[in-house]
């Protein structure tokens, strides 16, 4: 985790480095002088956006360094007729035919124009075009689950604040990504989550009690109390257990999908990753393997602007994540992650592509992480309250979707009240938490099982020794773990 203290001491150094022109660190290319660290920059002074002065409109804007040497548009990298000198035949390199050019031209590192972001609803929840993929029943379930997800997140977050569970992560701002993805998929599609996708489990029928059991690590936790809260997993719901290391699930997703491909299943794998996770080596490994193996995986990158305290500008310099797909030969799309219908429609289309064409697809959802990274984080330390508030109110995915559902006459204030303050919902959640809290933890023997298929002799020995110790010093050990 980035430490705020470390950052503040670096501020002065970095600000001065950017805004001072120091002759000693300039280099000359032809007639121009460039700052040492970025020879392609035509202007010597290019301030980088600093996280603490970022405002709403600049959030997703990273300075585009225009170059005098490289070409201006990424699109222009494709050969045109002028390039094929004297119409020589294309040369047959391993990897395919390539035509020549005598023009010395670099493809620009960035396009002047970003790829557009797909949406279906406008800011007021009104359709911009015809859309009839989502009918009433589905829409109502989607909306209800988004609201339930929000309430659930609030309750569990509070439970952590009260010291009842040790840790929690919310999905505030990304409810649509979770629920719409789940709605657009089949229950046979295998989910390989990062750690902010519990809305999918909710959609698939994981109960509030089951969520609470895992967070408390009690004897009814299917994970047997071994991992921190929010590390859910459920084979019944085709949701592979969460693990903390980032992006490790991506190459695994390619392997899981390859198995589905071998079985000719009408199913795909949907692997999730955040914007930060795309910097990991496993992102590269996962996408490359899926492409080469022609594995039916949908890679969903939840670009919510922040990796704990690290904003996009400090994570990568590409035009978001969707453009990275093309580098692997993977069709990609950028979607408004706060538009439930856009996410639904994109994921649905991606699934058809993945399953019918047996190939990977990359979907980048743009949203904003309204909540803190986790209960161990206070994001006001590195971003402004105003920024958070604006996304929370103006771009709330749940409100936007609600408007659309209401406009269709499928929802009303009465139902809203019933849903939100229903005794069933709140009591159900509170009850689930209370019950989970009161239950005993798994028995001691579960410390030693599942390390291997069967416990080897060293573990049998260690369990025996441990039990002797526990019997001798019971006060050293928690009493809610039965022996």
């Amino acid at each position, binding site marked *: 985790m980035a430490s705020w203290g470390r950052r503040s001491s670096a501020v002065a150094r970095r600000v001065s480095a950017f805004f001072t022109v120091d002759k000693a660190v300039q280099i000359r290319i032809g007639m121009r002088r460039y700052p040492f660290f970025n020879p392609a920059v035509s202007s010597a002074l290019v301030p980088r956006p600093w996280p603490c002065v970022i405002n709403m409109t600049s959030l997703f804007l990273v300075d585009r360094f225009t170059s005098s040497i490289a070409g201006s548009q990424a699109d222009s990298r494709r050969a045109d007729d002028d390039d094929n000198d004297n119409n020589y035949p294309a040369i047959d390199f391993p990897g395919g035919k390539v035509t020549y050019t005598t023009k010395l031209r670099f493809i620009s590192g960035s396009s002047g124009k970003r790829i557009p972001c797909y949406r279906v609803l406008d800011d007021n929840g009104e359709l911009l075009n015809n859309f009839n993929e989502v009918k009433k029943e589905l829409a109502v379930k989607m909306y209800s689950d988004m609201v339930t997800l929000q309430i659930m997140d609030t309750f569990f977050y509070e439970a952590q604040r009260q010291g009842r569970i040790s840790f929690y992560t919310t999905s505030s701002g990304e409810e649509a990504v979770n629920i719409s993805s789940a709605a657009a998929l089949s229950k046979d599609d295998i989910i390989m989550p990062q750690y902010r996708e519990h809305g999918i489990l909710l959609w698939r029928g994981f109960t509030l009690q089951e969520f609470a059991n895992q967070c408390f690590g009690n004897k009814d*936790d*299917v*994970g*047997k109390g*071994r*991992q921190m809260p929010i*590390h859910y*997993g*459920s*084979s019944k719901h085709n949701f*592979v*257990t969460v*693990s903390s*290391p980032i992006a*490790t699930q*991506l*190459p*695994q*997703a*390619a*392997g*899981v*999908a*390859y*198995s*589905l491909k*071998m079985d000719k299943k009408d199913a795909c794998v949907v692997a999730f990753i955040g914007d930060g996770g795309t910097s990991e*080596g*496993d992102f*590269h*490994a*996962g996408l*490359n*393997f899926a492409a*080469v*193996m022609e594995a039916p995986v949908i890679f969903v990158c939840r670009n919510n602007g922040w990796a704990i305290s690290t904003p996009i500008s400090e994570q990568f310099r590409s035009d978001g994540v969707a453009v990275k797909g093309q580098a692997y030969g993977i069709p990609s799309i950028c979607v408004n992650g706060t538009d439930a219908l856009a996410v639904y429609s994109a994921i649905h289309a991606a699934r058809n592509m993945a399953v019918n064409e047996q190939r990977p697809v990359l979907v980048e959802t743009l949203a904003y992480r309204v909540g803190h990274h986790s209960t161990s984080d206070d994001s006001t330390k590195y971003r402004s309250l105003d920024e958070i508030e604006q996304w929370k109110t103006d771009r709330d995915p749940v409100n936007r979707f609600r408007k659309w559902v209401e406009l269709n006459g499928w929802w009303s204030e009465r139902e809203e009240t019933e849903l939100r303050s229903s005794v069933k919902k709140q009591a159900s959640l509170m009850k689930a938490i209370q019950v989970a809290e009161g239950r005993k933890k798994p028995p001691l023997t579960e410390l030693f*099982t*599942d*390390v*291997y*298929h069967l416990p*080897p*002799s*060293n573990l049998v020995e260690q369990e025996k020794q441990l039990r002797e110790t526990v019997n001798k010093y019971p006060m050293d050990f928690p009493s809610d773990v039965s022996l």
Partner: protein
Amino acid sequence: MALRNIIGKRIGNGIGLVGRRSLSTSTSDVENRNAKSMNLYSAINQALHLALETDPRAFVFGEDVSFGGVFRCTTGLADRFGKARVFNTPLCEQGIVGFGIGLAAMGNRAIAEIQFADYIYPAFDQIVNEAAKFRYRSGNQFNCGGLTIRAPYGAVGHGGHYHSQSPEAFFCHVPGIKVVIPRSPRQAKGLLLSCIRDPNPVVFFEPKWLYRLAVEEVPEHDYMLPLSKAEVIRQGSDITLVGWGAQLSIMEQACIEAEKDGISCELIDLKTLIPWDKETVEASVRKTGRVLISHEAPVTGGFGAEISASIVERCFLRLEAPVARVCGLDTPFPLVFEPFYMPSKNKVLDAIKATVNY
């Protein structure tokens, strides 16, 4: 347990062995019917053929495995079983292992090859944080027991830093995986089949020096050798020697010479490093009162340290001498200095004598 054939001498300067190298083997563990003389890579190749033949959900993949592999271990597999089951992967160890974990999580037998053990480190996160914990962290809802990672390891005479490493100790510190190292062709076939069929993720290190140079009668049928069972391959009463892989043949030469001086050596092949067979080693040390461990990997933090600590815990009063370790030096694996670095026969012999005369 009969001594078999001529043991070749390992000569430095990359000249390799004089004559063929064979090992004494215990015959009691495998029937000898239809045995054929073959080397290590052929035995491994046979094991892979059998694994794919007997399980339609078995897959072999890794860099360059399709044409037969840089050490020929995967010869003929792609032709026989098809490109869907035997295929090249991109050059990316973390991808190979990650992909293998996913494949295994779906109930397949994923046999991944890492081209050299020296290159296994990019996959370390996937092995330690993912494969080893896959079953445990999910409460046994998921597992990747069908994963086997094969990698050539160890000195080869001219390999230098990056074609000679013995990284087994790193993996022996990881609960949840098994680490297995065969000493000979016949052992390799049986052990590899056990690893592939074991319901736990396994790292299988193959002594590359022995790929061509170790030749043995290997039964042609499908057989498996038990994991986590050490084998006494030479009986003795004065000192217990413990080792694995290619080092055993060096140790055996030292034992033969020590015998000329009247020292009776008991030699144990550990075979599985984790979970390791403490009982067999302990029983032997109770008999002899002395123990010497030898491995190519650097001495500090090598797996010999674990064996030494465990034996001292269990057999302290029985020990007549300190536990001896004859291992590689604490340096990166050198090229021209390889003969100096290696735990040679004479180094082992000297340590045997020093321990016996303590």
